[in-house]
């Protein structure tokens, strides 16, 4: 049973051409990832910024597919490896209900590039992390930045796939960033 915020998020995110999946267990998470990777024909997947407790489910879901562990790569090598990936799996610190957005906090630009470069980005988000709206999320973001003791993170809100309306106002997706963004809402993490 999804929370009220997660439900609201799902409605808005889907209306912005995002895809929302719910997973209530580790197994369901692995299965959703596996299915998504297969459906998108992904042969290499960049994985970045996934918290410890979720890594197992991710690894299991991507079994048999080339996985690029972005955190293990150094410097420009990380950037180039991410650019080669067909799909990425990243972590969102919060979901934003009213505006249908994901909030990502990254301390390394290779992690940020993982949600920018591949054609498909699967962002995992805990169902318990949802905030009511953008204003609340910005307050939370400001707090993360202010209270971060060492290097300050970059905060990115992502409200669907990359889009443009610069040609005769026609809505087109995937101009620079992902053509498809899948929010995988985890009820168990």
């Amino acid at each position, binding site marked *: 049973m999804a929370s009220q915020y997660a439900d609201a998020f799902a409605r*808005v995110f889907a209306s*912005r051409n995002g895809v929302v999946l719910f997973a209530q267990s580790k197994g369901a998470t692995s299965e959703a990832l596996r299915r998504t990777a297969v459906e998108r024909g992904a042969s290499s997947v960049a994985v970045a910024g996934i918290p410890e407790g979720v890594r197992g489910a991710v690894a299991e879901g991507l079994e048999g597919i080339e996985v690029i562990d*972005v955190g293990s*790569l*150094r*410097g*420009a*090598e*990380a*950037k*180039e490896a991410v*650019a080669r990936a067909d799909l990425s799996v990243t972590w969102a610190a919060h979901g934003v209900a*009213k*505006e*249908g*957005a994901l909030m990502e906090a*990254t*301390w*390394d*630009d*290779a992690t*940020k*590039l993982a949600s*920018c*470069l591949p054609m498909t980005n699967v962002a995992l988000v805990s169902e318990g992390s949802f905030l009511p709206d*953008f*204003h609340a999320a*910005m*307050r939370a*973001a*400001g707090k993360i*930045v*202010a209270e971060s003791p060492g*290097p*300050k*993170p*970059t*905060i*990115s*809100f*992502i*409200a*669907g*796939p*990359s*889009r*443009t*309306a*610069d*040609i*005769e*106002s*026609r809505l*087109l997706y*995937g*101009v*620079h*960033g*992902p053509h498809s963004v899948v929010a995988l809402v985890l009820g168990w993490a």
Partner: protein
Amino acid sequence: MTDRKGLADKVRRALATEGLSDKMWASTSRARGNRAKAIEELGIDVRGMKESVRGLKQEALGDPELPRKFAARVEENGGHVFFAKDGAQAIDYVAELAKRRGADVLVKSKSLTSEEIDFDHALEARGVRCIETDLGELIVQMAHERPVHLVMPAAHKSVADVASIVSHGLKREVPQDPDAILKEVRAYLRPMFLSAKVGVTGGNAGVAETGTVVIETNEGNGRLVSAAPDVHVVLIGAEKIVRTWEDAAEVVSAAAISATGQPMTVYVSAFTARSPLGGEGAGRELHVIILDNGRSKMKSDPRYSEALDCIRCGACMNICPTYSVVGGHTFGHIYPGPISIPWTANVHGIDNAAYSELCIACGLCKEACPADIDMPMMIAEVKQQLVDLNGQPRVNRFFAGSETLARLASATAPLSNWSLRPRAARVLMEKAFGVDRRRTLPAFSRKRLRSRLRGMDAGDGSAGKVVYFPDVSADYNDPELGVKAVGVLAALGYKVEVPKLRWSGMPYLSYGEVRKAARVAEYNVRALEGYVRDGYEVVSTEPTAAYMLKDSYLTLVPGEGSSLVAAHSHPFFEFVEPGLGKLALTATRGPGVELGFHIPCHDRALTVGGPAVRFLRAAGYGVKVIETGTCCGMGGTFGMKAGALGFDLSNAVGERLFDLFRGSRCGLAATESSVCAAQIHDGTGLEAVHPLHLVDVSRR
């Protein structure tokens, strides 16, 4: 010296360019529609949003230390800050940085501030190529043009145009298919993002409390530009710095809603420090350039300081009627649209702001602005500066003196009316004064309103006391309207006075005679203040007059008097609506006549036509509100002026409304504004009248 002929030629060319007006109109009307839909669906309190954005901007701009506080935080987090006095300093800084880092190519996401200082060309001249990565910006860069709109830079280009431009730019054939164009652009830019050593972004907000820069994009190019290269340069106007994250949230969400009707843009990114890449931080740099370029001067000038509240959403250009048919290459200098006028005058020089004549003073830009910037008043000030410098063109002098002309024409009526009818007289008038021969001119009444009212029942005062403000039309042209208005007020039990007043003075603002407008306002406020203190309410049937009394006079003659008058002034139908139950309303046309109703621009800030429509419906009419979402194009007397800087441009705007009227099959048009009625009549052939002329009113 203002080159009016050059401006007229530009307008003529824009109107004659096949498809330009249609593309601009389609883009702006879609943006208007999306904004309206978002406001409704998200339940946005527009007034609250305006107050909030305006409040936080004013607070930020009122703190002279804020840019320093912001800079200190950026530096604490390892970033570099450079305060650039002008564009040249900013460009020098970037050119030196590029040289130091061995970068001969930069990638850049959309930055309006960079447009302001002609960043790309200036760097190109220093041997550094700047690649625009926003699709619209890339299209105009490849076409060697300027953006036509702040948010939709290539709104004037068709798919075929874009395919041709991109084919030429990439030196390979690109099909006339948006998806195919997109794939080509993605393939072209991807290696640029990955190989560039320096990336440049703008900043929608700088957050002083943490030294954070917030940017909004839909395409995601801003994220790539800021993450992939080792060096990230932010070019941000000093006015973009706000105090807190909450303030930044307010700014970016107001911008997204107002620009495109999105609850938020697809990407909102906030950078506080340069992050390492793959664990390596060496050589990763963040440079924040805080640009002044005339902003300090604007801040200290009370006429223009509000322009710094602009959040660059483009809503003012989406609603601007004349911009929407000629586009930003004609209605603009480097920045396009209404807000560009004060910016251009201050940042690029007053001589470059002569296109301010294309503003027809409809006031809609202020209505659409999420920061409630009083653009109409600032534009009037720019026009006044131009008049002071170059003198007033004869045609504008003629129309700015409409009150005197009306007095003269009324005193000599009906001779004045007859003398203006023959074609030869109109040709002469066009040549001598610039009054377009094609425009139907209003007839003048020999007997003015106060004479007409002599001996008439002026009400018993049982409901209260009212001053009726006729303005020019109900005094000199159509006093019968004033008689009907007074009759309705008297029937409701109001004691009505029509004291000696001057006109509202709006044409003075339209033609850049702000000081004269202030004198008129002062006269009227002084005349009305005593009545208001004596318990009178002020009522006008002319929406422009009500708007002046309630809004413009507050700026023209600030003080207790104008505040008092504004608080007690009312549009006619809004004022009488609560008492309509006491009256018998009988439609004078019909039965079964359906009216096409037009909302005058100045009433959009007041009643949005609601009470007038309900009045007509209560009298038994079927009423269809017919609107394009912007002005009819008449702009007071603008549409009476000859040629491209008048009638032609006015008609190009009006055509969109005329088409709707023609398609509505309404047999009659109703509108509260005398000049809108003239425009609709001339454009459609329909009889167009004030609602009061369509209803007989008596006490039940």
